[in-house]
């Protein structure tokens, strides 16, 4: 499907710098403006924050109105935002292969205490156990934002803080880009931190850990991926809920369970139960291109697929993941799972969904890097093709050298 361009809307690659330049650029030189066209303007950004975390000059920040990446100071043309973006330069399925995508062991766990939250109950218990055992000094999790639809990343350092932030959030927060600042603000000195995030956040974290430029995310010693099939664009989800007569302020929690999106008020009563597919229009379009619902690059994957009701499945994917679950046994009451077919079936289904949406080939044996040209070759002419850059994101910033 191709898109008819509206009159007056400029073509891609019409940045004044491309027009003016009297020196030919090397092939595959990529700038934030290329990321803006291919990912952000093309409405494929999944707001994981990998670009922000990868930028060695801290030039990328978060646009207040859209929650998406934007330049806050001069782009130096180092390409790292492109290289670490799971929607452009980073072939995440290859990364997962390099990281060793097979799970080492599987558990069905439940929180020993009285924890709220969807998968969060068990994950919260795991983190609390690790904190109290001194295995970690804190955990970056997504807590409550301004309303039930939004989240806000926090660095929790106590069981109480973890409990306060328990529960699921279905909008993205550019979480990976905010980890350094959270640690700096915490006052902790060289801490060991667990990072809990969606698979794309974990992909970015794993890639940066493997391919460090400047000790990015040096404090992150454990990664936990939450099983995820999609996240939502805040404004669109809000609009769809209002259209169904649900007032945002009356929602206390949202969850996806059994294929339904469920909104509850603060008494736990259901305000809405509807097939989650009815909210497809509000899903982040970039999420459809992800075949990694379980977060294969993580130390631990966590989700409610494949375990008995009330239990959460934890897959330990690395030694660090196994050790973490061992260390928190008292808080988790784990049963080893012999049978992970349900989870595998789910992952296969998700992969088929992604293959139907993603214009490029999913190929875990292809090189990790996807160049600018390769991206264009695969995406041009599709409904996910790059679109002309947004000057507000690319040209308008206040800091330069």
């Amino acid at each position, binding site marked *: 499907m191709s898109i008819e361009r*509206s*009159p*007056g*809307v*400029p073509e891609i690659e019409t*940045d*004044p*710098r*491309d*027009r*003016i*330049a*009297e*020196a*030919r*650029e*090397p*092939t*595959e*030189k990529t*700038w934030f403006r290329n990321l803006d066209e291919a990912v952000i303007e093309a*409405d494929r950004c999944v707001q994981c924050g990998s670009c922000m975390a990868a930028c*060695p*000059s*801290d030039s990328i920040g978060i646009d207040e109105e859209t929650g998406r990446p934007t330049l806050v*100071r*001069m*782009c*130096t*043309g*180092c*390409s*790292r935002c492109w*290289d670490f973006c799971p929607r452009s330069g980073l072939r995440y399925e*290859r990364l997962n292969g390099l990281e060793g995508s097979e799970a080492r062991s599987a558990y069905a766990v439940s929180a020993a205490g009285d924890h709220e939250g969807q998968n969060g109950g068990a994950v919260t218990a795991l983190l609390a156990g690790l904190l109290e055992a001194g295995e970690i000094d804190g955990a970056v999790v997504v807590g409550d934002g301004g309303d039930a639809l939004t989240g806000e990343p926090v660095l929790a350092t106590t069981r109480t803080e973890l409990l306060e932030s328990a529960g699921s959030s279905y909008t993205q927060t550019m979480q990976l880009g905010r980890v350094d600042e959270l640690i700096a603000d915490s006052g902790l000195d060289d801490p060991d931190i667990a990072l809990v995030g969606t698979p794309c956040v974990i992909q970015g974290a794993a890639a940066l850990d*493997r*391919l*460090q*430029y400047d000790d990015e995310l040096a404090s992150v010693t454990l990664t936990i991926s939450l099983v995820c099939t999609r996240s939502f664009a805040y*404004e*669109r989800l*809000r*609009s769809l809920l*209002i*259209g169904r007569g649900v007032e945002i302020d009356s929602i206390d929690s949202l969850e996806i369970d059994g294929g339904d999106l469920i909104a509850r008020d603060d008494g736990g009563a259901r305000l809405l139960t509807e097939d989650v597919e009815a909210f497809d*229009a*509000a899903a982040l379009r970039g999420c459809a291109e992800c075949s990694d619902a379980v977060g294969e690059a993580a130390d631990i994957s966590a989700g409610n697929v494949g375990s008995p009701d009330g239990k959460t499945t934890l897959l330990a994917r690395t030694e660090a993941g196994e050790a973490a679950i061992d260390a928190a046994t008292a808080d988790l009451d784990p049963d080893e799972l012999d049978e992970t077919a349900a989870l595998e079936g789910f992952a296969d289904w998700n992969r088929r969904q992604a293959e139907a949406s993603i214009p490029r080939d999913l190929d875990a044996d292809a*090189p*990790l*890097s996807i160049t600018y040209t390769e991206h264009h070759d695969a995406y041009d002419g599709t409904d996910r093709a790059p679109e002309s850059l*947004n*000057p507000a994101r*690319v*040209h*308008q*910033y*206040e*800091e*330069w*050298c």
Partner: protein
Amino acid sequence: MTLDISIADPSWVDDRRDGLAVVDARDRRDYETLGHVPGAVNVPFESIRDSGSDAAGHLPDPEAVRELLSAAGIEHDDPVVAYDNRRGVEAARLLVTMAVYGHEGPLYLLDGDFDAWQRAYRTEQSVPDPGVSRYGSVSLRASALADRADVEAAMGNGTTLVDTRTASEYESAHVPGAVHLGWEAFVDPETGRLKPEAERRAILEDRGLDPDDPIVLYCNTARRLSHTYAVLSAHGYGHVRFHEGDLTGLIREHSPDWDPKQLYEGVREVASEGYDALAEELGEDVFGRLHLIGLYTVRQDGYFMLRTKVPGGRLTAEQAKTVGRITEEFATAPERHGGTEQNPVFGDGFLDVTTRQGIQLHWIRIEDMPEIWDRYESVGLTTIQASGNTLRNVVTCPTAGRIAGETDVNAIAEELADAFEGSRRYANLPRKFKIGLSGCQENCARAELQDLGFVPATRDGEEGFAVKVGGGLSDGPRAATDLGIFVAPDEVVDLSLAAADLFIDHGSYLDTAVNRLKYVVDEWGTERFREELRSYAPFEFEPYDRTPSSDYRGDHVGIHHETGDRYYAGCTLPTGRIGGGDLIEFADLADRYGDGELRTTANQNLVVPGVRGDTLESFLGESVLDEYSPTPGPFSRGIVTCTGREFCKYGVVETKSRGHRWARELDSWLESSDVPDAAVPDAVRIHMSGCSASCAQPQIADIGLRGEAYRDETRSSQAVDIGLGGDLGQPRFVEWVSGRVPVEDVPDATKRLLRRFFEERRADESFATWTDRTDADRLDRIVRTDRAVAGAD
């Protein structure tokens, strides 16, 4: 004379939708997938915003408006209702745009946005075919707009200025005398609807706004003011205009915060309280403003880089000694950052000469600045406007005034610096502004790289200058182009101020990535630029008769004749870095052998002028010249680097130590190679910039390097783009033949390139000429391919 826009109640709209053109201003995807008001057509807000750098504010091109509205099936006299999902502010902008372009039908802003609508009224999913209309001719009602001069006039003529931004933006800085009325004041945050009419009226009265008052609205990008405009129009305010231009320049020119001298005094006052006091006392945004007085924050928290202005690169021995002592005393790293061994090559207490002949010190603490400034003032040095969006250090021939028959441009350089210094207006241009003055025929001041580059020319036997405009490097390199006019020496300052005035009016204060003067020149073309500039200049433009044939000089290294029995000695500072103590020694040499003066050069070297011929031999025996030689190897002579990742927050790669090490290694490689001495060029010009900003001017080098980050499946590392064949004599910029080469591969790649050059060069062909005639793909292979590999190249 206010353009008519009314407020439409949703029930009214719902009742008579068939008679209205309902326009949805959300983005296309929202419109198509989230439902919309039944029958609404889509004109996305983004599509009615101008993104060009030469925009008259943010209004789109009239033809684009006509096309957009035609494609949406809207007729010129249709009654139009607009809505969005941003509580009306973007829909209001669409309506204001239509109104200012003369839409003939009535215009209505829907009270409440789409979310407010869908709480009470039906929506539709299917996308209607709007058909195609032939929207009538479109012309601008300019009387609705207030330009910068109108806003400035409004400060004193009884017109009420209304700032429609947020309270915190207003408090941070606003146009003097403006009333604050944030656009959201009229919106009920619970419902997204407008507040009741009586409440709106009360708000207007509270701000002292009378319907008969002349009013000018402003915000930052003319979006938010549109909502307020619609409300005022609906309330019968009859004399409302709005300002389309960027606010930044206006506010800065009229704000004491952006006055370089007041800032300088302010920092002096609080400096003793330390780093944290700067933001507390002078505002959170102070660090950006500090550029105006030469201070840059760096990678090391709590410390600064200090840039000192040296117009024309001319330092008296006394000034040089002062700089040297300050460097030794204050440009020193604390123990926890390595102290005296902080840098493996240069130790501690060093300074950098820049490609604009300026001087930069590192590890500066704010507490020491009053003392540093006191010492500077006592010898006539300043850091005021050493940086920021103003005239940067004026570049001249480093031998200006020394050579018979050449114009002494240093006096003009001083005048230029003075004309801009301390002026709030000229301290706050849209972006930095660079001027170079060459008095010689060798283009020492690199006219093509400047916003304004002056080179010698004559008219009717009178000596003066030709001027080139719109040069610059960085991520959009452009060589300045000849305006074709003659500028007498006493007109240089006037012409430069005229160009600055033009820049203020026509440069964008908003699009900071692409707003150097070169973008205006490029958009207009040189002819139109000259015609526009003519209206700013206080003298008539006449063509010059001729410019002397010019031959680009490159550098000033070596011993060269001045006049009579005087010589100048050009000494290399590889990468421009020199110890403070060594600079003092040079100043001492200048006193003992020369005229008590030193010059810095755009190649980051040092010139000792006026050395007497009979003392040359003894001068050349001075030990400080062992390190900073007038007869260096070709790589030491040619190396130029920026500050790099050692200190700079933008630097992707480290440059100074690396460049110094490479130059030494490559010189000894060449010396021990089998290349005959006669074939060895005087200089191999490697220019290494730590990022895409061009502080080391890589585009004019033999081998230009630009910081990058390499990444494969197993590692990340510092890397460079390699460009070859830059030559200002042509003029020609490098071609970037190889991208993202791991930085450790550069010395061997350089050797391979040089070997091929020596094998293949024709007669006296230069390296740049050889690379220019050699296929870029082949050069890339030479760069990347180790010669040991069979079949390489």
